[in-house]
Structures are given as structure tokens and as C-alpha cells.
């Protein structure tokens, strides 16, 4: 009777807070629906945990997915899903908030609900059960889980959780009038919270959606995303959670800006988080200082969707490196573009600590492909960048690509091998050494809602796999350079399930439930994921429908089709998205609105927002010498 890594369930992390249950009137349980080692470092959950924890009378605890060994013991001994903070049962809380950065956490949500003793269907819950709220990027199309959640929050969570707490408190103070239906109605009336039960979806005989419409007076026809406009006013995390157990990210992360307008057409994050809102250099400096002191971490990550694009990234890098000179504190920039300037940044960042490899993401193998996806990087850019890196002593460069992009052919993918050869060639010349390498990492592309590719056909897994194998063989059989090129790839099957869940509608919920019922858990883990289980479940669950997995994944949509998420407003104008999709098919690129005029994607007009970029000309706050 023992479980693996028991420390992940004991809580007690540095900077975690346990409040008195009785003295709080609004109680949240937050969940990241994956194993503790993945969930604990999640920035979104950490931010909301701290924001809520600072509110008077609000209690917040966390829970994560339990591994099958503990699940078996819990079911045997009737132990419910519990929080790690104070080991309280999840079912006792007012609100159960679950953050989805990927759709592959859906079965884990069902399992947690079931272990908590909460009915998995929203319709079966009573006033005794928590309100189940989904957030995170996947909440921009929560239709596949519409039957299992009570509500979804679109967009930035900081202010939204404060607003939800106020609504719940008021409703409880009034004696919970009208039960949970009334509470959900009040949440839906805010306009930023989607409550699926108040919208009816009708279908046509051919399986297409006919309409999505509110079924109650007072419910908005469209739900808008929430946008946090002043990142300097919300400098979270201030006191990051420091786990006892080992986790996937062992660093203190500061988000240096939110949003991205590079306009990469495959990138859902870049589309749904617009506009760009920078955190100022002095706030970043103060956050890094406070976070390191509060955590003892040895590494600082400067997060964003494209960190080198911060208007003052140069001074930030230089001044942070100066500040931490000689302290063995390393800095990292997780997302960088292909740009020689980034090598200079990387040099600054590795001055005080460990020097890892450099990563660049050209995404598309051929020049044409990169135009289709609007990743404005030329082969020259890439070669110039890696030449700089190798010349300055970096030995390994990692390159990220995607396979299965719209209009792609075998040849587009095989050009990745040419590119890798040229990279090694440039590296050997620049470094004068043969001891250099590059790694090509490639995965299948999954079309996402609220992007120009939301209409695109996903490539079937067999073709994806055959292209990847051709590329692998081309690289392996290269006598001159093959040994210097590493190749990592993910097979196409999990991508099809992700595609089904990403662009699915409410009918896909039956498939998720069937998969969970037949034992599906931890779908993001290859050792637990079963493609056959998903396909069998889909066959069963969709037997009475005119649609199947292919209909949801490998089918191209036309302009007139009602998409399952059309009533959820990310601010992007659907006509603009369509135009961008058409432009991609004719290799037309679109620029970044930070340094060119606005191209009317619709976000700022619809949401009443504006780009917020520097430079401010300020510097990091000077620190008192210790």
C-alpha cells in the first residue's frame, strides 16, 4: 500500500496559504487537470491562487490530477478528490475552477469531478455542489465540455475571479435565492462569463450547426473575453509557490507582456490574447527581485509569446544580468524569434549561470510554407542567426517545425532537411569545429478556433506520419551532416484527438464521457493515451449522428458554416479572419500592428482596448546592496 512520489500530495509548499474555513464566505478550489509536476508551475493557476488568497473572506486551495495508483486507493477507501493545501474535499467548496491550457485535460476533469463526488453532468448537480468553472485558452471553445461545466471564463482571469467572488458572496448573503440556476444567471449577465445551459444549439439534418441562441431573457447573444489592461497594477505572482516535489519548471517566471500581434496564422494564443500589453521595465525589475527573494529559485524566466519583442528587452536583459552578476542566477527567455539580436540576448542571459541550448522556431520548412503561416522568417535570417550563435560559442541549436500545415506537400517538409544541412554547414564554418549540432523537433499542426486556420482541413495522421518518416530517413541517410542533426517528432494520432476536442461542438462531449468511462486519463501522456480508445468511443457515442471524427478534423469548413464558438467573442472580426485565411492561400503576408498601421483585426474596436508598448526609457529599480 504505497503511492509513487507521495510528496506531490502533501502540500505545504513555500508561499502556500491555508486560511480558516469558517471565517471565509467564498471558497474556491483551483485545479490544473494534470499531474502535480506539470500543474504546480502553471503560471495561470499560481496567479489566480495569489489574487484570490489576498482577498478578505475568500479562501482558495488547489488540487491536481492524482495518478492511477492513488486513484485506486481513493476509490477503494472512499477518499474524495482533495486539495493539497489543507486536504479538504473538493466537493465542499463553493467554486471549482479548472484551468485548461490544453484540451487533453478534459478526461482528467471528469475523473476529478467523479472522485470529488460531484455529478459529472452540470444538469445533475444540486445546490450542494460547487459551481464548476473552466478557464484558460481551451475555454475559448468550451463546447465539447459544455455539459460538464457550469460556466467558462474567456480571457484574462485576474479581474474575472474577483468579480465572480463578489457575485457569489452577494448571492450567498441573500440566502442563495433561486439556487444555483439563479447564481449562474447572475454570472452570465456580466457578459464575460459563458453559461452553456442558457444557450440552445440546434443542428441541421446534415449535422451542421443551425443556430446557437440564448434561451432566456437577459442573457447576452455573445459572450466577450475579458482583457486585463494594466499589467503593472497586477504584478503577480509576487510570492511564487515553491514545491517540495520536482516539477517541470524549476524557475521563477515573470510575464513581461501579454498578447502578440506577429500574426502567425496557426497560433491561437497570439490571436485570442490581443492586443499587446507590456509590463514596464521597472515593474519587471521589482517583480524579479521580490520573486527571487521569496522563492530562492536559481533561474528567472521572462515569459511571453515572443519575449524578444518587448520594446525594452535589451536594457532588461543587460540590467538583469548586471544585477545578478556573480550570484549563479540564470535568466531564460523561453520564446524567441529567429533573429541574430536574440543571440546577443542569450549571451547576456547566460552570463551568470547555466548555458542551455538555443531554440528557434521557423515552424515552416519551406519559404512558401512560412508565407502561408505568416511566419516572416527567411532562410537568410535563420542562417545569419545560427551563424552568430555558433560563432559565439553555442554548440547546439534546436529548431521547431510543424507538419500538416494548410497546402503543405511532402516537398515542403523535406526542405527542413535542406535547412538543417545548411545550418550545420554554417555552424562548422563559423565555429571552425565539427563538434556542433542541431536538433529538429517537429509535431503535427492542429487547427484551432479563433484563428485564420479555423476553417482548414487537418492533415490525417497517416499522411502526417508518412511525411515525418520521409523527413527522418532523408536526414538519417545524409552522410555528410546526418550525424550532426538530431530528429525528434510526435506521431500524428494524438493530434487528431486534439483536433477533435479543439474544434468540436457539444456532441463531442459524449465522446469525452465515453473515453473517461472506459478508463481514459492523462491523455497528454503518451504512456496513458490510447488513440484506439478515442476512436472506439467516437464510433459509439456518435453512432446516431451524421458526423464522425473526420468530419470534425480533416474536413475543410466553408465561409457560411456556423462554427461552434461563433457566439464566443475573442474580439477578432470573423470577416478579417476569413480574409487572412484567403491571404494565406495566396502567400500574402500581414505585418505586425505594433510598427505598421492597424489592419483591422477587430479586437481593439470590439473590446475597447489599445496596444500598450514602450519604450518608457526607464530603468530597473536600483536595489539596496545586501
Amino acid at each position, binding site marked *: *500500500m*504505497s503511492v509513487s*512520489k*507521495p*510528496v506531490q*500530495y*502533501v*502540500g*505545504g*509548499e*513555500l508561499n502556500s496559504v491555508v486560511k480558516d474555513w469558517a471565517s471565509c464566505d467564498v471558497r474556491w478550489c483551483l485545479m490544473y487537470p494534470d499531474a502535480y509536476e506539470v500543474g504546480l508551475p502553471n503560471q495561470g493557476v499560481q496567479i489566480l491562487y495569489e489574487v484570490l488568497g489576498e482577498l478578505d473572506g475568500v479562501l482558495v486551495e488547489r488540487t491536481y490530477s492524482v495518478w492511477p495508483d492513488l486513484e485506486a486507493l481513493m476509490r477503494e477507501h472512499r477518499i474524495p478528490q482533495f486539495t493539497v493545501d489543507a486536504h479538504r474535499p473538493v466537493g465542499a467548496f463553493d467554486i471549482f475552477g479548472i484551468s485548461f491550457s490544453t484540451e487533453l485535460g478534459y478526461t482528467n476533469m471528469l475523473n476529478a469531478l467523479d472522485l470529488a463526488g460531484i455529478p459529472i453532468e452540470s444538469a445533475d448537480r444540486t445546490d450542494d455542489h460547487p459551481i464548476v468553472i473552466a478557464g484558460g485558452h481551451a475555454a475559448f471553445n468550451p463546447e465539447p465540455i459544455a455539459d460538464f461545466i457550469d460556466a467558462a471564463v474567456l480571457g484574462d482571469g485576474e479581474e474575472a475571479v474577483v468579480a465572480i467572488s463578489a457575485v457569489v458572496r452577494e448571492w450567498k448573503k441573500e440566502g442563495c435565492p433561486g439556487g444555483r440556476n439563479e447564481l449562474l444567471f447572475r454570472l452570465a449577465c456580466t457578459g464575460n462569463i459563458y453559461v452553456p445551459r442558457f444557450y440552445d444549439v440546434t443542428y441541421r439534418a446534415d449535422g451542421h450547426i443551425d443556430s446557437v441562441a440564448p434561451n432566456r431573457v437577459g442573457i447576452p447573444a455573445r459572450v466577450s473575453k475579458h482583457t486585463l489592461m494594466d499589467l503593472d497594477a497586477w504584478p503577480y505572482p509576487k510570492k511564487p509557490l*515553491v514545491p*517540495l*516535489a*520536482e516539477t517541470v519548471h*524549476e524557475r521563477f517566471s515573470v510575464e513581461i507582456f501579454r498578447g502578440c500581434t506577429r500574426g502567425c496564422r496557426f497560433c491561437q494564443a497570439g490571436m485570442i490574447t490581443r492586443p499587446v500589453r507590456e509590463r514596464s521595465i521597472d515593474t519587471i525589475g521589482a517583480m524579479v527581485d521580490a520573486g*527571487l*527573494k*521569496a*522563492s*530562492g*529559485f*536559481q533561474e528567472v524566466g521572462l515569459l511571453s509569446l515572443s519575449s524578444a519583442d518587448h520594446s525594452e528587452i535589451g536594457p532588461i536583459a543587460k540590467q538583469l544580468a548586471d544585477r545578478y552578476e*556573480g550570484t*549563479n542566477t540564470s535568466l531564460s527567455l523561453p520564446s524567441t524569434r529567429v533573429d541574430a539580436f536574440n543571440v546577443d540576448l542569450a549571451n547576456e542571459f547566460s552570463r551568470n*549561470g*547555466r*548555458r542551455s541550448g538555443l531554440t528557434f522556431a521557423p515552424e515552416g520548412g519551406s519559404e512558401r510554407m512560412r508565407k502561408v503561416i505568416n511566419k516572416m522568417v527567411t532562410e537568410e535570417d535563420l542562417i545569419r542567426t545560427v551563424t552568430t550563435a555558433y560563432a*559565439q*560559442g553555442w554548440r547546439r541549436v534546436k529548431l521547431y517545425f510543424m507538419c500538416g500545415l494548410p497546402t503543405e506537400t511532402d516537398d515542403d517538409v523535406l526542405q527542413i532537411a535542406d535547412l538543417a544541412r545548411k545550418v550545420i554547414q554554417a555552424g562548422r564554418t563559423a565555429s571552425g569545429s565539427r563538434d556542433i549540432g542541431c536538433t529538429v523537433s517537429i509535431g503535427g499542426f492542429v487547427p484551432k478556433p479563433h484563428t485564420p486556420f479555423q476553417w482548414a482541413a487537418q492533415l490525417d495522421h497517416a499522411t502526417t506520419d508518412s511525411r515525418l518518416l520521409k523527413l527522418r530517413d532523408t536526414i538519417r541517410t545524409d552522410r555528410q551532416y546526418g550525424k550532426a542533426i538530431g530528429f525528434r517528432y510526435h506521431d500524428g494520432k494524438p493530434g487528431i484527438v486534439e483536433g477533435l476536442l479543439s474544434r468540436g461542438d457539444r456532441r463531442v462531449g459524449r465522446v469525452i464521457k465515453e473515453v473517461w468511462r472506459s478508463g481514459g486519463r492523462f491523455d497528454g501522456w503518451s504512456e496513458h493515451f490510447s488513440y484506439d480508445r478515442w476512436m472506439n468511443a467516437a464510433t459509439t457515442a456518435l453512432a446516431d449522428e451524421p458526423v464522425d471524427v473526420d468530419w470534425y478534423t480533416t474536413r475543410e469548413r466553408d465561409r457560411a458554416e456556423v462554427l461552434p464558438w461563433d457566439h464566443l467573442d475573442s474580439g477578432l472580426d470573423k470577416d478579417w479572419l476569413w480574409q487572412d485565411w484567403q491571404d494565406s492561400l495566396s502567400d500574402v503576408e500581414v505585418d505586425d500592428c505594433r510598427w505598421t498601421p492597424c489592419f483591422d483585426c477587430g479586437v481593439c474596436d470590439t473590446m475597447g482596448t489599445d496596444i500598450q508598448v514602450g519604450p518608457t526609457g526607464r530603468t530597473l529599480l536600483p536595489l539596496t546592496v*545586501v
Partner: protein
Amino acid sequence: MARQPDAREVALAVQKLRVHFAKRGRLRFTSHRDFQRVFERAIRRAEIPVAYSAGFSPHPKISYVGAASTGAASEAEYLEISVTRVCDPERVRAELDAALPPGFDIIEVVEARGGSLPDRIDTSHWQVTLTGVDPEDAARAVKLFLQEESIPVERVLKDGRRTLDARLPVVTLGVVEDLGPTGCAILDMVVRHLTPAVRPDDVLAGLRQVSDLAPPLPPVVKRLAQGHLDESGRLADPLAPDRDAAAGADPAAEIPATR
């Protein structure tokens, strides 16, 4: 171009500190690797001037001595830290203790005055609580255990299944009388450190083998002390030589007022 870290930048260690700490409560579920991470971060928060190794991947100079296994509590864990500035051991104790989560508690810090700490540790004193076991049954099992010359038990180690002699390293084994709540038996044992190590779990496996003693719940294991087993059968405190050396020296000359 500066690919090689400049050797001059690596600050040299000027003092070695020996740390005695405890692992208590729910933190007994931490593994040794978990503790290492937690401890290194506590060192940084407490701003202890720990020395780092040179090279591309500098590591703090901390050496751990014989860690208790995951799930076992301990009142007697030891490690050594090298620092780049001379520190007051008591101040380091207080600051590290404040920086560590409750459950990892620093009991004592002394300055190393020569000798090797691992050489002073060859035996552990354990207490094992068996809930749901009648002390009389436990006493009978202990008696049978001690009568044997050798008790082979199996354990899965990293390199496969191995047979260990659970009897060989056991110096003393007994049932503690009139202690703790009723409905449980408490074993007290002194076990020599061998390679591979025989752990309290292995002794329990041995007890089960000689007497069918099968606790219904997982045992709660706690290390009470570690040290050198002297001829009188007593465990010598491994920090005593350092403490004695410090007491014998002129305190004003040896211990600076500030770090």
C-alpha cells in the same frame, strides 16, 4: 566569446559547516532529491554565502551524509556546506531554519574542525511504530528474530532483486514498553550501516519471516540518532569532536561577530 567561465570568478570556500537537521511530520514523504532542491533554495533565500563548483553548470558545494529513505522521519540527518565567507554557525542555524518549511528543522550547525563526518557515522538508532499490532506479539517476534544467526530477506534494488541478511547488522532490537497510544507496538532498534543498507523495512520483513508478524497498516519509521557505535555499545554524537574543538579554542578569535 567568453565561453569558459573565468576561474578567478569562482569564489573559494573558506569554511566548512556541519549541519544536523530533522525531517518531521508530512515532510517525511519527501525524497532525498526533493530535500536537496528545497535546501538549496533555502540557502539562497537565507543568503548563506555558499561556495559553488566551477564549470558550465556550477553547483553549490553541499555534501549529504546517508539520507533517510522517503517516508521515514528523522531526528538525525547530517550534511556539510562550504561557504565563501566565515560565518557564525549559530546564526546560520537560525537563518536556515527560518528559511526552511516547518518540518525541515535545523537542530545544530557547527564549524568543521577537521576529520571526516561520514567516517563518524556507521550506525543508526531507529524507532518503528506498528499500529494495530499487539506489543506482546511484537515481543515474541523480536525474540525469535534475535535467536537467528542470519535472516535472508528479498528486496528490489536498482540492479534487480537482491537477498539481504536482515539479522546481520542489527545490534539491538526490542519493544518499547508503556509508550505511545494503545493498540500499537513500538520497536526500538540499532542497526549498523552496511552496503547495501539494511533498512527498518528489511528488519520488519525479517520479523515477518520468523513469526508471521504482519502489521495491518504501514509502519511509521523514525530515525532517532546516527553516529559511531563505540565499544560500550553507545552511539557517539558525530558533531561532538567539532563542538569540543570549538569550546576549547578562544571563542573571540574563532567566531567573528558577523558573517
